[in-house]
């Protein structure tokens, strides 16, 4: 699923931003997206499963949610002119049809400030039946 997200972002017009294939690990305590402003990082998937329909069979029908986070940071003092467009385009990643058999697609965007950097985190949640 991370591959599909990366492929989608690769098709976008990113302006002054760049896409990294690396996961957003920390280097000396600092996440890479803080060390490298205007670089987009895609995290690895996280999974959570919960029962959707209980039955008398030995196995329930479950819904499994795959969560993928996308991070990037930019100088808060002089925000890139395409920031809003980029966020809108990244939010649309939840609807890409290369990720199939999903019955619920959600995305949320959260911003925080780290010193003079505006950190933007998109959390995409894809739920399917298992």
């Amino acid at each position, binding site marked *: 699923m991370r591959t599909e997200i990366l492929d989608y972002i690769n098709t976008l017009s990113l302006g002054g931003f760049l896409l990294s294939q690396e996961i957003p690990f920390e280097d000396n305590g600092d996440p890479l997206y803080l060390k490298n402003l205007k670089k987009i990082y895609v995290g690895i998937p996280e999974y959570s499963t919960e029962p959707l*329909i209980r*039955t*008398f069979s030995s196995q329930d029908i479950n819904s499994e949610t795959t969560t993928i986070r996308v991070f990037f940071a930019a100088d808060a003092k002089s925000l890139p002119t395409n920031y809003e467009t980029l966020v809108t385009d990244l939010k649309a990643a939840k609807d890409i049809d290369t990720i199939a058999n999903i019955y619920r697609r959600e995305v949320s965007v959260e911003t925080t400030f780290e010193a003079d950097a505006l950190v933007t985190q998109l959390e995409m949640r894809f739920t399917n039946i298992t």
Partner: protein
Amino acid sequence: MAYTSPSYISPGPGSSNQITLSLDVASDTSDITQSAAISIAGLQDITVNASNDVFTWSQLDSTAKKQVATTATNSISMNLVVDDALFFGTALSAAATGTAAEQGLMGFSRNKTLINFILKFVEGGSNQATADRYIKGVGYITGLAPTVSADSPVWVTPVTITVSGEYTVAAT
């Protein structure tokens, strides 16, 4: 009088006391033996209905009506999650002469196939039960109404076994 603890029947998913329902094609209304039955998977709930009709009359010597139970209308209703092979059968155009596996629930309904059923209530050895307890009978599959929605993207359907004749209660 000595106290006797209650013996509740508590089927649970995945337990040895799990509730099971099996269906097979019946040759006639007295055939409740199964040789090539299908086991119903994905049961969400099941209800055994045994509704006696009542004949009521009044007598001049009584201030209350008299009643007597007459014939019963029996049925078993349930809801289940649709399983492809179980619902459609292994042969989509199977006739009533096909096996239970070939016809599936949809075939039973479409062909008006006389079926027999065995519903296991309780596993032997649990609490005060000394043997498995079953309700058996013959009837027809009716009331299929598969449904799905965007919020619940799994097909579920009610199923009714319209029972012809009496239930047979058995212990093995």
